[in-house]
């Protein structure tokens, strides 16, 4: 690890100010950033911890009935506290291991947008709103490919608002080593239609499987799930070929629908 400055502000405004420095980096739970720094693959000159900002902590109900999660809320806190949205609580409770869940945060996960991470599927599948210090971003506009998001330099996720669906479920098929999602599928049924978000599978990162959404919006049953998507553009690595991942997308979508209905 290289040397760096460390700040732990207690308000979002102070954090934004501290992050104005070039090469400053926000720190959520540090579950991605710290290993990267230890391996000397990242070298921020300043690290600004967001965990001391009380307005970014916790799970609550919004006026519109959505579940609002502070940007620095840990996975463990969501698993325990988001009972109004059980599928999301279950997703958070299935991330990593207890140590990771005790530190990792929703903001960190969404900012990082790892192509195999779980929260991106939950956020995209729920049509969540990502609230930052500067604006509100619809999930559909937020995810822009592997490790790429709509966030600007120094922009902080302060809250994420998840509309609560009629039924939802997340199916994660674990990569045997990392236990991130080899493929994960989030299905959520809303009054105005079904959303299906897929993580782990595509070289484009988290994405919606529109063919399945259309079929399931017409008939929300496992039988309605279309045949597996094409393997073009799917990730191929040690743990799975593109064809295997494409196959899993359909299998997991069926299972998610069955578990949700």
């Amino acid at each position, binding site marked *: 690890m290289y040397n760096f400055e460390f700040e732990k502000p207690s308000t979002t405004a102070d954090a934004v100010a501290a992050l104005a420095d070039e090469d400053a980096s926000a720190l959520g739970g540090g579950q991605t950033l710290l290993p990267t720094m230890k391996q000397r693959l990242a070298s921020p000159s300043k690290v600004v911890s967001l965990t001391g900002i009380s307005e970014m902590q916790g799970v609550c109900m919004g006026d519109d009935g959505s579940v609002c999660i502070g940007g620095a809320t840990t996975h463990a806190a969501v698993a325990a506290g988001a009972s109004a949205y059980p599928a999301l609580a279950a997703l958070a409770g299935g991330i990593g291991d207890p140590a990771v869940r005790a530190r990792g945060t929703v903001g960190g996960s969404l900012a990082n947008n790892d192509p195999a991470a779980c929260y991106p599927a939950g956020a995209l599948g729920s049509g969540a709103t990502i609230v930052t210090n500067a604006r509100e971003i619809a999930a559909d506009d937020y995810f822009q490919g592997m490790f790429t998001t709509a966030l600007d330099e120094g922009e902080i996720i302060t809250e994420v608002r998840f509309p609560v669906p009629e039924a939802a479920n997340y199916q994660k098929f674990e990569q*045997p*080593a990392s236990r991130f999602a080899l493929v994960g599928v989030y299905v959520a049924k809303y009054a105005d239609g079904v959303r299906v978000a897929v993580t782990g599978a595509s070289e484009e990162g988290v994405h919606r499987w529109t063919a399945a959404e259309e079929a399931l919006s017409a008939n929300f049953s496992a039988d309605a799930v279309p045949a597996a998507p094409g393997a073009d553009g799917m990730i191929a690595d*040690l743990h799975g*070929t593109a064809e*295997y991942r494409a196959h899993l997308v359909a*299998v997991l979508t069926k299972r998610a629908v069955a578990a949700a209905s």
Partner: protein
Amino acid sequence: MPKDSGIGASPKRREDIRFLSGTGNYTDDMNINGQAYVHFLRSDVAHGRIKSINLDAANAMPGVVKIFTGADFEGVGGIPCGWEVTDKHGQPMQEPAHPVLAQGKVRYVGDQIAAVVAESVEQARDAAEAIEVDIEELPAVVDMKAALEEGATKVHDDLTSNLCYDWGFVEENKPAVEAAFAEAAHVTTLELRNNRLIANPMEPRVAIGDFERASGNSTLFTTSQNPHVIRLLMGAFVLGIPEHKLRVVAPDVGGGFGTKIFHYAEEAFCTFAAKALNRAVKWTSTRSEAFISDAHGRDHVTTIQLALDADNNFTAVRTDTHANMGAYLSTFAPSVPTWLHGTLMAGNYKTPLIYVNVKAVFTNTVPVDAYRGAGRPEATYQLERVIDKAALELGVDPIALRRQNFITEFPYATPVAVEYDTGDYHGTMDALEKMVDLSGFEARRKESEARGKLRGFGVNCYIEACGIAPSNLVGQLGARAGLYESATVRVNATGGLVVMTGSHSHGQGHETAFPQVIAEMIGIDESMVEIEHGDTDKAPMGMGTYGSRSLAVGGSAMVRATEKIIAKTKKIAAHLLEAAEADIELKDGAFSVAGTDKSVAWGDVTLAAYVPHNYPLEDIEPGLEETAFYDPANFTYPSGAYACEVEVDPETGKVTIESFNAADDFGNIVNPMIVDGQVHGGIGQGIGQALLENASYDENGQLLSASYMDYAMPRASDVPFYGVDHSSQTPCTHNPLGVKGCGEAGAIGSPPAVVNAVVNALRSGGHDITHIDMPVSPQRVWQAMQG
């Protein structure tokens, strides 16, 4: 009633109090006043010529003490290989130089180019980044078969090819084996890969070199399974330091699984640099570094053939194996695919004719050496997979086919040069069948099918040769060391004992089990016995802990030394009791005269040895300390039968282990709880190999599974609660305890059962599959089901 002390009891492991409470003393816990830290600059290319190394910028970095490169090691010895294999033409293997720091060329990703010694680890790393190395990248040799092709790039320019040796065993049997195959009623052929593994002990390797200018003595603290071996190899072959000027200490060692047997360049470097700099130098491997610098294990590609007659008797076995050596020969690497593998190809079966061919190959990968089981898992896997495949082809029950071919008479001389002293293979199979509820299997399979899952059952046997090994025998086989063990038993005046043993626990529980033996022999409480190990200044000599040899060889040395103690105390007791020595009996910690009520306590006798006022000084010396060296007469041959039941999710290919049962014959057992634990851990590793673990290189020699993000270790949720039985006991006939060794059995015996079960499950789903290579990952199972 289970005993509560002595042989056969299961006292809790006394070492666990410190291991579980964070008070162990591991090498990295040690710090020496004024120590500097070293960071190794390692190659990030698999094969390349070092054109230049510019240290100017790095030398100017803060905290740098000195940067060493290969140039500083000219004239210093290389890392030696401890075993010379002779090929099938009677020629010695090709043995390349193995420099401490790269000389002119790098040969694998991880090869050490330079060593930066600095005031802190971070400063050393900073400076290492400032070193400018110009490397001309060369084509990497990764695939073993391609490595042997005409015109293949050579890993070592000064060798004639990438072939280390071409070994035939037993070469004279070859024509008879060929003839048997020509006459066979049935031949089953199977090609398989024994996947490359990385040991991943919980404690990464650490070395601290220290030097005392006043005496000129060097000390190396290191994470080793065998400090005396390191002292000999490093002192004699690398640095030229005689034993009396070099002390090697391995304090608590947090797992090794073989990978901490070997002498590594980092150890030699730290010892060398400490002397050069006149201050201690410490190296602590990071986990990432461990993946590319700890010797790997396994990595065999084999074609095995089994010949059977019309009555399904095995008539011959023939194998053709390519074994990866990696870029250099690690300490025992050449012995693993040969003498620890070919000699086991008879397994539990009376196959009369066997021929084993092994080509050991150099590649641009991390050196490969012994890993839990070393050669024996590879042999077992081949044999037990080909037998299952034969059973499939012949439409016979795999257990019946095995039973029909079991060796039943002992001693049994195999056609592959070893003699099994005892065993009862039907006995262990009977014990296994009692555990597995075979008759209920069909119902369980139906229940799985009702849930859309495929259920499979797999069984295998194993035999292994451990308690290594008779020195004269291994000498003939090419070992450059003896494989005896030593022990010194020191009895203090008030009766307590300290055993200084050359065995060195890296988690096995010697501190608990060894005292149980002495407690039994003398009839005293285990708490009166303490074990000292891991320090060349304490035990007289030690070959260390591997090959499941600690109790069988090290324990036997301790028994012999204790017998000498008992003989001497009997003399003293006879004197004190004014009786004939022959009439003295030792029982429950007291000496008595047979047929009388005269007795004297153990502590009174030991006190007399140190306060010899009333003492037979004319016959014996005062004091009570004895040493014994024990050289075994044969290997020991534990054996067993294992069974695995799996469920396969046909939609995803995911395999779940539903049950795993193990029936082992370890001969006599000192601490059943520790034995259970060894079997549990071994099976866990075997399941890891079968389902999860794989060190995978790309065609450029980059290790793809170089962290836990991609190298899948088994976790608690991957394994079931095991059934373990060791009621079938045929004691070893040639060591004083009748013990056989249990440390590797689980890892040797479990992979075939898992794969056999998966194949069985898939076939029940109508898939015409006869083999899937390990690790049987979801992706591979799914792929296999696609046809």
